[in-house]
């Protein structure tokens, strides 16, 4: 059972392979995402994020979900030596982790509901659990940043999260919070981790480090990465190959 919608301004797909899948599960997940959007959207004037930035909401009155996001953001900032920071130029902007968080929430909900073989995707970041019955894992293609109709890699994933960050669409929009400049050295960066929240936050942080982001990721336990450089070469962590499916 598979459904694609738009949420938080992004395309999203939920696919559940378990035979017991109930169509109502999509409604639950999409309603949860709607709440997240209303709370975290920078484009909705009444969102909690905008209230915080307008100085209209004291930390004492943050919603439980906002507290959770703030806590997660602090943890990611520490793990990435400040290269991931939701506070930039005096503004609170957690959008770098809200997507991963929303996917993770949906996956947790599906798992609690007893589903074992599913994927949840928002805008190219994916949480994958279990596998299709005909294979040993979900087949995920990595988009060619120079030609979106092409794939440059195929990986097989089971119980993993995968996230891709990149400068190739909006230009160097991922700013280096340490040096203040734009990080242009990685055209795209794909991270595979034990879950999509971790993959997403590390991909965002590592992309801001430029090429050194690969060295950083190579030292993180349980994480593999594949990056495309401006000269159309790819560099990747040595453990990445364990996921690769060779094709002709």
């Amino acid at each position, binding site marked *: 059972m598979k459904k694609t919608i*738009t949420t938080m*301004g*992004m*395309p999203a*797909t939920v*696919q559940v392979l378990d035979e017991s899948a109930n169509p109502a599960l999509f409604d639950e997940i999409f309603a949860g995402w709607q709440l997240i959007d209303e709370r975290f959207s920078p*484009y909705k004037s009444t969102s909690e994020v905008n209230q915080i930035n307008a100085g209209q909401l004291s930390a004492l009155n943050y919603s439980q979900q906002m507290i959770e996001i703030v806590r997660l953001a602090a*943890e990611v900032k*520490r*793990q990435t*030596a400040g290269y991931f920071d939701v506070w930039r130029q005096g503004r609170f902007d957690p959008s770098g982790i809200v*997507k991963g968080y929303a996917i993770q929430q949906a996956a947790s909900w599906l798992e609690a509901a007893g589903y074992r073989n599913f*994927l949840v*995707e928002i*805008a*190219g970041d*994916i949480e994958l659990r279990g596998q*299709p019955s005909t294979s040993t894992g*979900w*087949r*995920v*293609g*990595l*988009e*060619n*940043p*120079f030609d*979106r109709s*092409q*794939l*440059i*890699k*195929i990986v097989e994933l089971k119980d993993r999260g*995968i*996230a*891709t*960050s*990149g400068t190739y*669409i*909006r230009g160097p929009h991922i700013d280096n919070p340490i040096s203040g400049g734009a990080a242009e050295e990685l055209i795209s960066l*794909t991270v595979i981790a034990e879950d999509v929240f971790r993959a997403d936050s590390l991909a965002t942080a590592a992309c801001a480090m430029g090429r050194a982001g*690969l*060295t950083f990721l*190579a*030292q*993180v*336990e349980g994480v593999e990465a594949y990056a*495309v450089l401006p000269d*159309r*070469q*790819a*560099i*990747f*962590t*040595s453990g*990445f*190959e364990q996921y690769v*499916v060779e*094709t*002709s």
Partner: protein
Amino acid sequence: MNIIRKYAQITIVVALLCAIVWLRRRSNESVAEVSVAPPKPTPEATTEPAASSPDVTPTALPTPISTPTPQSSGQYRDGAYTGQSANAYYGYIQIQAKISGGKLVDVIFLDHPSDNRTSQLINGQAMPLLKSEALQAQSAEVDIVSGASASSEAFRQSLASALGQAS
């Protein structure tokens, strides 16, 4: 990273030199000990997801592994001696010094700071391995695609919509 590695190495070398000097002064006493100064442990930033800090406690007392045998030549008593754990910045290091024929013949690392992946790289491992390749188009079927383009299209649409509301 290289600077950290050098500091760790310098710490060890200095500790060994201090130990050797100290051994020379105490060569006539009953128990010779190799020890390194134990600084107070401090919490360090790690790259591991941490619900709690790694639980690392230094060994309290240096203990001789084997009974030293009296010998007349050389400056040290033969045997194996374990130093106190020392804070090597990324974790704790503890060495065992082996004395044979009155001389320092071997030093073994007993305590690698293995609770932190970065420390494993410092303690004798090679730099993290990265590989490179040219891009190659793949032609097989997949269940789903990971890329950054979808969010950018959505970004453009969303921005246009927001600006539309604002005007």
